[in-house]
Protein backbone atom coordinates (compact mmCIF):
# COMPACT_ATOMS: atom_id res chain seq x y z
CA UNK A 1 0.00 0.00 0.00
CA UNK A 2 1.49 3.31 -1.09
CA UNK A 3 0.59 5.55 1.76
CA UNK A 4 3.85 7.50 2.00
CA UNK A 5 3.26 10.63 -0.08
CA UNK A 6 -0.14 12.24 -0.22
CA UNK A 7 -1.62 11.69 -3.70
CA UNK A 8 -2.60 14.66 -5.79
CA UNK A 9 -6.37 15.03 -5.44
CA UNK A 10 -6.88 17.39 -8.37
CA UNK A 11 -5.06 15.02 -10.72
CA UNK A 12 -7.28 12.15 -9.61
CA UNK A 13 -10.47 14.15 -10.20
CA UNK A 14 -9.20 15.17 -13.61
CA UNK A 15 -8.75 11.50 -14.44
CA UNK A 16 -12.29 10.75 -13.27
CA UNK A 17 -13.62 13.58 -15.42
CA UNK A 18 -11.62 12.36 -18.39
CA UNK A 19 -12.94 8.86 -17.90
CA UNK A 20 -16.54 10.03 -17.77
CA UNK A 21 -16.44 12.51 -20.65
CA UNK A 22 -13.60 11.55 -22.94
CA UNK A 23 -13.95 9.35 -25.98
CA UNK A 24 -13.76 5.72 -24.95
CA UNK A 25 -10.47 4.14 -25.85
CA UNK A 26 -10.09 0.53 -26.88
CA UNK A 27 -9.17 -0.36 -23.31
CA UNK A 28 -12.37 1.14 -21.99
CA UNK A 29 -14.41 -0.99 -24.36
CA UNK A 30 -12.75 -4.07 -22.96
CA UNK A 31 -13.37 -2.90 -19.43
CA UNK A 32 -16.99 -2.23 -20.30
CA UNK A 33 -17.37 -5.75 -21.67
CA UNK A 34 -15.96 -7.25 -18.50
CA UNK A 35 -18.19 -5.01 -16.38
CA UNK A 36 -21.15 -6.25 -18.39
CA UNK A 37 -20.22 -9.81 -17.59
CA UNK A 38 -19.73 -8.90 -13.93
CA UNK A 39 -23.12 -7.15 -13.66
CA UNK A 40 -24.83 -10.05 -15.39
CA UNK A 41 -23.19 -12.63 -13.13
CA UNK A 42 -23.86 -10.63 -9.99
CA UNK A 43 -27.56 -10.19 -10.77
CA UNK A 44 -27.86 -13.86 -11.70
CA UNK A 45 -26.28 -14.90 -8.41
CA UNK A 46 -28.45 -12.51 -6.40
CA UNK A 47 -31.58 -13.84 -8.06
CA UNK A 48 -30.52 -17.44 -7.52
CA UNK A 49 -29.84 -16.72 -3.87
CA UNK A 50 -33.23 -15.08 -3.42
CA UNK A 51 -35.11 -17.72 -5.39
CA UNK A 52 -34.16 -20.69 -3.32
CA UNK A 53 -32.51 -20.77 0.04
CA UNK A 54 -31.14 -24.28 -0.34
CA UNK A 55 -29.99 -24.42 -3.94
CA UNK A 56 -26.67 -22.69 -3.24
CA UNK A 57 -25.82 -24.72 -0.17
CA UNK A 58 -23.16 -27.38 0.11
CA UNK A 59 -23.90 -30.95 1.02
CA UNK A 60 -22.42 -30.80 4.50
CA UNK A 61 -24.34 -27.60 5.20
CA UNK A 62 -27.54 -29.34 4.16
CA UNK A 63 -26.69 -32.32 6.35
CA UNK A 64 -26.09 -30.04 9.32
CA UNK A 65 -29.35 -28.25 8.61
CA UNK A 66 -31.20 -31.54 8.41
CA UNK A 67 -29.71 -32.70 11.69
CA UNK A 68 -30.67 -29.45 13.36
CA UNK A 69 -34.22 -29.82 12.10
CA UNK A 70 -34.34 -33.43 13.26
CA UNK A 71 -33.24 -32.60 16.77
CA UNK A 72 -35.61 -29.63 16.90
CA UNK A 73 -38.42 -31.90 15.77
CA UNK A 74 -37.53 -34.44 18.45
CA UNK A 75 -37.38 -31.76 21.12
CA UNK A 76 -40.72 -30.30 20.09
CA UNK A 77 -42.37 -33.72 20.01
CA UNK A 78 -41.15 -34.38 23.53
CA UNK A 79 -42.32 -30.96 24.61
CA UNK A 80 -45.72 -31.61 23.13
CA UNK A 81 -46.04 -34.88 25.01
CA UNK A 82 -45.10 -33.15 28.25
CA UNK A 83 -47.61 -30.40 27.68
CA UNK A 84 -50.35 -32.89 26.83
CA UNK A 85 -49.58 -34.69 30.08
CA UNK A 86 -49.76 -31.43 32.00
CA UNK A 87 -53.03 -30.58 30.31
CA UNK A 88 -54.46 -33.98 31.22
CA UNK A 89 -53.37 -33.57 34.84
CA UNK A 90 -54.81 -30.09 35.09
CA UNK A 91 -58.07 -31.20 33.51
CA UNK A 92 -58.34 -34.08 35.96
CA UNK A 93 -57.66 -31.89 38.95
CA UNK A 94 -60.09 -29.27 37.70
CA UNK A 95 -62.76 -31.96 37.31
CA UNK A 96 -62.04 -33.13 40.87
CA UNK A 97 -62.23 -29.54 42.07
CA UNK A 98 -65.52 -29.06 40.27
CA UNK A 99 -66.95 -32.17 41.93
CA UNK A 100 -65.76 -30.95 45.32
CA UNK A 101 -67.28 -27.54 44.66
CA UNK A 102 -70.62 -29.10 43.67
CA UNK A 103 -70.60 -31.28 46.77
CA UNK A 104 -69.76 -28.34 49.01
CA UNK A 105 -72.43 -26.21 47.39
CA UNK A 106 -75.07 -28.91 48.00
CA UNK A 107 -73.98 -29.20 51.62
CA UNK A 108 -74.05 -25.42 51.97
CA UNK A 109 -77.60 -25.28 50.55
CA UNK A 110 -78.78 -27.95 53.00
CA UNK A 111 -77.09 -26.22 55.90
CA UNK A 112 -78.49 -22.84 54.86
CA UNK A 113 -82.02 -24.26 54.97
CA UNK A 114 -81.34 -25.80 58.38
CA UNK A 115 -79.81 -22.57 59.66
CA UNK A 116 -82.69 -20.60 58.20
CA UNK A 117 -80.46 -18.32 56.15
CA UNK A 118 -81.95 -19.37 52.80
CA UNK A 119 -85.57 -19.45 51.64
CA UNK A 120 -87.04 -22.92 51.06
CA UNK A 121 -89.83 -24.42 48.93
CA UNK A 122 -91.65 -27.71 49.29
CA UNK A 123 -94.79 -29.50 50.40
CA UNK A 124 -96.00 -29.00 53.92
CA UNK A 125 -98.77 -27.73 56.15
CA UNK A 126 -100.23 -24.35 57.08
CA UNK A 127 -101.50 -24.36 60.68
CA UNK A 128 -103.77 -21.52 61.78
CA UNK A 129 -104.38 -21.09 65.53
CA UNK A 130 -107.22 -18.79 66.51
CA UNK A 131 -107.76 -17.94 70.15
CA UNK A 132 -110.19 -15.04 70.59
CA UNK A 133 -109.49 -14.93 74.33
CA UNK A 134 -105.72 -14.73 73.83
CA UNK A 135 -105.22 -17.85 75.90
CA UNK A 136 -102.59 -19.53 73.73
CA UNK A 137 -99.21 -18.41 75.05
CA UNK A 138 -95.61 -19.51 74.69
CA UNK A 139 -96.17 -22.97 76.13
CA UNK A 140 -98.55 -24.36 73.52
CA UNK A 141 -96.62 -22.47 70.82
CA UNK A 142 -93.33 -24.13 71.78
CA UNK A 143 -95.18 -27.40 72.01
CA UNK A 144 -96.50 -26.95 68.48
CA UNK A 145 -93.00 -26.23 67.15
CA UNK A 146 -91.58 -29.27 68.97
CA UNK A 147 -94.31 -31.51 67.58
CA UNK A 148 -93.61 -30.28 64.07
CA UNK A 149 -89.87 -30.86 64.49
CA UNK A 150 -90.59 -34.33 65.84
CA UNK A 151 -92.61 -35.01 62.69
CA UNK A 152 -89.65 -34.05 60.54
CA UNK A 153 -90.39 -30.45 59.63
CA UNK A 154 -87.40 -29.07 57.75
CA UNK A 155 -88.25 -25.38 57.66
CA UNK A 156 -90.71 -23.55 59.88
CA UNK A 157 -91.86 -19.96 59.83
CA UNK A 158 -94.49 -18.20 61.94
CA UNK A 159 -96.78 -15.53 60.51
CA UNK A 160 -94.40 -15.25 57.57
CA UNK A 161 -92.05 -13.06 59.61
CA UNK A 162 -90.08 -15.31 61.92
CA UNK A 163 -88.03 -18.30 60.82
CA UNK A 164 -87.85 -20.91 63.53
CA UNK A 165 -84.32 -22.34 63.78
CA UNK A 166 -82.27 -24.26 66.35
CA UNK A 167 -81.53 -21.19 68.44
CA UNK A 168 -85.10 -19.84 68.38
CA UNK A 169 -86.81 -19.18 71.70
CA UNK A 170 -90.45 -18.50 72.57
CA UNK A 171 -91.44 -16.09 75.34
CA UNK A 172 -94.51 -14.34 76.75
CA UNK A 173 -94.38 -10.67 77.45
CA UNK A 174 -96.25 -8.71 80.14
CA UNK A 175 -99.13 -7.80 77.83
CA UNK A 176 -99.98 -11.41 77.03
CA UNK A 177 -98.32 -11.29 73.61
CA UNK A 178 -96.15 -14.15 72.33
CA UNK A 179 -92.64 -13.35 71.14
CA UNK A 180 -90.39 -15.60 69.09
CA UNK A 181 -86.70 -14.57 69.05
CA UNK A 182 -87.84 -11.39 70.78
CA UNK A 183 -90.22 -10.48 68.00
CA UNK A 184 -93.90 -10.05 68.73
CA UNK A 185 -96.22 -12.48 66.94
CA UNK A 186 -99.69 -11.15 66.26
CA UNK A 187 -102.80 -13.28 66.49
CA UNK A 188 -104.02 -15.34 64.74
CA UNK A 189 -100.87 -17.44 64.56
CA UNK A 190 -100.04 -18.96 61.21
CA UNK A 191 -97.35 -21.63 61.33
CA UNK A 192 -96.02 -22.82 57.99
CA UNK A 193 -93.88 -25.95 58.02
CA UNK A 194 -92.17 -27.75 55.14
CA UNK A 195 -92.00 -31.52 55.44
CA UNK A 196 -94.12 -34.57 54.70
CA UNK A 197 -97.54 -32.90 54.80
CA UNK A 198 -99.45 -35.98 55.98
CA UNK A 199 -97.04 -36.67 58.86
CA UNK A 200 -97.10 -33.03 59.90
CA UNK A 201 -100.91 -33.05 59.81
CA UNK A 202 -100.96 -36.11 62.06
CA UNK A 203 -98.45 -34.50 64.44
CA UNK A 204 -100.92 -31.69 65.08
CA UNK A 205 -104.19 -33.57 65.06
CA UNK A 206 -103.42 -36.65 67.16
CA UNK A 207 -105.48 -37.18 70.29
CA UNK A 208 -104.06 -35.12 73.12
CA UNK A 209 -101.91 -33.19 70.69
CA UNK A 210 -101.76 -29.52 69.84
CA UNK A 211 -105.31 -29.33 68.49
CA UNK A 212 -106.80 -30.78 71.65
CA UNK A 213 -104.67 -28.54 73.85
CA UNK A 214 -105.72 -25.39 72.02
CA UNK A 215 -109.35 -26.40 72.02
CA UNK A 216 -109.15 -26.97 75.77
CA UNK A 217 -107.90 -23.39 76.03
CA UNK A 218 -110.90 -22.18 74.02
CA UNK A 219 -109.11 -21.75 70.70
CA UNK A 220 -109.37 -23.39 67.37
CA UNK A 221 -106.77 -25.08 65.15
CA UNK A 222 -107.04 -25.41 61.42
CA UNK A 223 -104.54 -27.51 59.44
CA UNK A 224 -104.25 -27.31 55.68
CA UNK A 225 -102.00 -29.60 53.64
CA UNK A 226 -100.27 -27.71 50.85
CA UNK A 227 -98.48 -29.14 47.80
CA UNK A 228 -96.10 -26.23 47.44
CA UNK A 229 -95.22 -23.97 50.29
CA UNK A 230 -92.73 -21.13 50.34
CA UNK A 231 -90.83 -20.29 53.49
CA UNK A 232 -89.33 -16.88 52.86
CA UNK A 233 -88.63 -15.52 56.33
CA UNK A 234 -84.92 -15.63 57.11
CA UNK A 235 -83.15 -16.08 60.40
CA UNK A 236 -80.22 -13.87 61.25
CA UNK A 237 -76.91 -15.47 60.43
CA UNK A 238 -74.76 -15.69 63.52
CA UNK A 239 -71.27 -16.89 64.15
CA UNK A 240 -70.61 -19.20 67.07
CA UNK A 241 -68.79 -17.08 69.64
CA UNK A 242 -67.69 -19.75 72.08
CA UNK A 243 -68.22 -23.08 70.40
CA UNK A 244 -65.32 -24.16 68.22
CA UNK A 245 -65.29 -27.22 66.02
CA UNK A 246 -63.75 -30.03 68.07
CA UNK A 247 -61.06 -32.04 66.30
Amino acid at each position, binding site marked *: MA*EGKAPDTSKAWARVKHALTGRPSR*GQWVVAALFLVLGFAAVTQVRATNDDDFAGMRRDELVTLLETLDSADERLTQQRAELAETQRRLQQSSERNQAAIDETRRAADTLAILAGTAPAVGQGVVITIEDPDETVLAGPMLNAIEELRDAGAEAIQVNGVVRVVAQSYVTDDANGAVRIDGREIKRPFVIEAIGDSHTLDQAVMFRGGLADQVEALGGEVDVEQVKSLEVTALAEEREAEYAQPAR
Partner: protein
Amino acid sequence: MIAVLGLVVGVALGLLFEPTVPAGLQPYLPIAVVAALDAVFGAIRAYLDGRFDDKVFVVSFISNVLIAALIVFVGDQLGVGSQLSTGVIVVLGIRIFSNAAAIRRHLFHA
Protein backbone atom coordinates in the same frame (compact mmCIF):
# COMPACT_ATOMS: atom_id res chain seq x y z
CA MET B 1 -18.27 6.29 -18.73
CA ILE B 2 -18.64 3.40 -21.08
CA ALA B 3 -17.56 1.07 -18.29
CA VAL B 4 -20.40 2.25 -16.09
CA LEU B 5 -22.75 1.82 -19.04
CA GLY B 6 -21.48 -1.74 -19.44
CA LEU B 7 -22.25 -2.49 -15.81
CA VAL B 8 -25.76 -1.06 -16.14
CA VAL B 9 -26.40 -3.02 -19.33
CA GLY B 10 -25.17 -6.21 -17.63
CA VAL B 11 -27.51 -5.71 -14.68
CA ALA B 12 -30.38 -4.93 -17.06
CA LEU B 13 -29.70 -8.07 -19.07
CA GLY B 14 -29.59 -10.13 -15.93
CA LEU B 15 -32.93 -8.75 -14.80
CA LEU B 16 -34.43 -9.14 -18.26
CA PHE B 17 -33.50 -12.74 -18.98
CA GLU B 18 -33.76 -14.05 -15.44
CA PRO B 19 -31.12 -16.70 -16.09
CA THR B 20 -30.79 -19.66 -13.80
CA VAL B 21 -27.34 -20.60 -12.59
CA PRO B 22 -26.20 -23.90 -14.12
CA ALA B 23 -25.88 -26.54 -11.45
CA GLY B 24 -22.17 -27.06 -12.11
CA LEU B 25 -21.40 -23.37 -11.62
CA GLN B 26 -23.48 -22.92 -8.52
CA PRO B 27 -20.73 -23.14 -5.88
CA TYR B 28 -18.31 -20.98 -7.93
CA LEU B 29 -20.39 -18.05 -9.11
CA PRO B 30 -20.59 -16.15 -5.79
CA ILE B 31 -16.83 -16.44 -5.25
CA ALA B 32 -16.20 -15.48 -8.86
CA VAL B 33 -18.35 -12.37 -8.51
CA VAL B 34 -16.45 -11.27 -5.40
CA ALA B 35 -13.13 -11.93 -7.11
CA ALA B 36 -14.26 -9.84 -10.09
CA LEU B 37 -15.27 -7.04 -7.70
CA ASP B 38 -11.76 -7.16 -6.26
CA ALA B 39 -10.28 -6.83 -9.74
CA VAL B 40 -12.60 -3.89 -10.48
CA PHE B 41 -11.57 -2.00 -7.36
CA GLY B 42 -7.94 -2.72 -8.09
CA ALA B 43 -8.46 -1.33 -11.61
CA ILE B 44 -10.10 1.85 -10.35
CA ARG B 45 -7.25 2.41 -7.95
CA ALA B 46 -4.68 1.84 -10.69
CA TYR B 47 -6.54 4.26 -12.96
CA LEU B 48 -6.48 6.97 -10.33
CA ASP B 49 -2.81 6.25 -9.78
CA GLY B 50 -2.35 6.92 -13.48
CA ARG B 51 -0.92 3.49 -14.21
CA PHE B 52 -3.98 1.71 -15.48
CA ASP B 53 -3.37 -0.80 -18.24
CA ASP B 54 -6.32 -2.47 -19.90
CA LYS B 55 -4.32 -5.59 -20.62
CA VAL B 56 -3.34 -5.94 -17.00
CA PHE B 57 -6.95 -5.40 -15.99
CA VAL B 58 -8.29 -8.07 -18.34
CA VAL B 59 -5.71 -10.57 -17.21
CA SER B 60 -6.20 -9.83 -13.52
CA PHE B 61 -9.98 -9.94 -13.86
CA ILE B 62 -10.03 -13.32 -15.59
CA SER B 63 -7.27 -14.85 -13.49
CA ASN B 64 -8.92 -13.63 -10.27
CA VAL B 65 -12.17 -15.30 -11.25
CA LEU B 66 -10.48 -18.49 -12.36
CA ILE B 67 -8.24 -18.79 -9.31
CA ALA B 68 -11.14 -18.12 -6.95
CA ALA B 69 -13.20 -20.82 -8.67
CA LEU B 70 -10.22 -23.16 -8.62
CA ILE B 71 -9.67 -22.70 -4.91
CA VAL B 72 -13.31 -23.45 -4.20
CA PHE B 73 -13.17 -26.46 -6.48
CA VAL B 74 -10.09 -27.84 -4.76
CA GLY B 75 -11.67 -27.12 -1.40
CA ASP B 76 -14.77 -29.03 -2.39
CA GLN B 77 -12.65 -31.97 -3.49
CA LEU B 78 -10.79 -31.93 -0.17
CA GLY B 79 -13.99 -31.63 1.83
CA VAL B 80 -13.17 -28.17 3.20
CA GLY B 81 -15.12 -26.27 0.54
CA SER B 82 -17.17 -24.08 2.82
CA GLN B 83 -14.22 -23.14 5.04
CA LEU B 84 -12.01 -22.40 2.08
CA SER B 85 -14.61 -20.27 0.33
CA THR B 86 -15.06 -18.35 3.54
CA GLY B 87 -11.30 -17.78 3.60
CA VAL B 88 -11.30 -16.61 -0.01
CA ILE B 89 -14.14 -14.21 0.73
CA VAL B 90 -12.26 -12.82 3.73
CA VAL B 91 -9.06 -12.25 1.76
CA LEU B 92 -10.88 -10.66 -1.16
CA GLY B 93 -12.88 -8.51 1.26
CA ILE B 94 -9.69 -7.22 2.87
CA ARG B 95 -8.24 -6.41 -0.55
CA ILE B 96 -11.42 -4.62 -1.60
CA PHE B 97 -11.32 -2.55 1.56
CA SER B 98 -7.68 -1.55 1.13
CA ASN B 99 -8.28 -0.65 -2.53
CA ALA B 100 -11.34 1.36 -1.57
CA ALA B 101 -9.23 3.17 1.04
CA ALA B 102 -6.64 4.06 -1.61
CA ILE B 103 -9.38 5.33 -3.96
CA ARG B 104 -10.78 7.41 -1.12
CA ARG B 105 -7.38 8.95 -0.47
CA HIS B 106 -7.03 9.83 -4.13
CA LEU B 107 -10.39 11.49 -4.46
CA PHE B 108 -10.99 13.08 -1.09
CA HIS B 109 -7.52 13.29 0.40
CA ALA B 110 -8.84 11.49 3.42
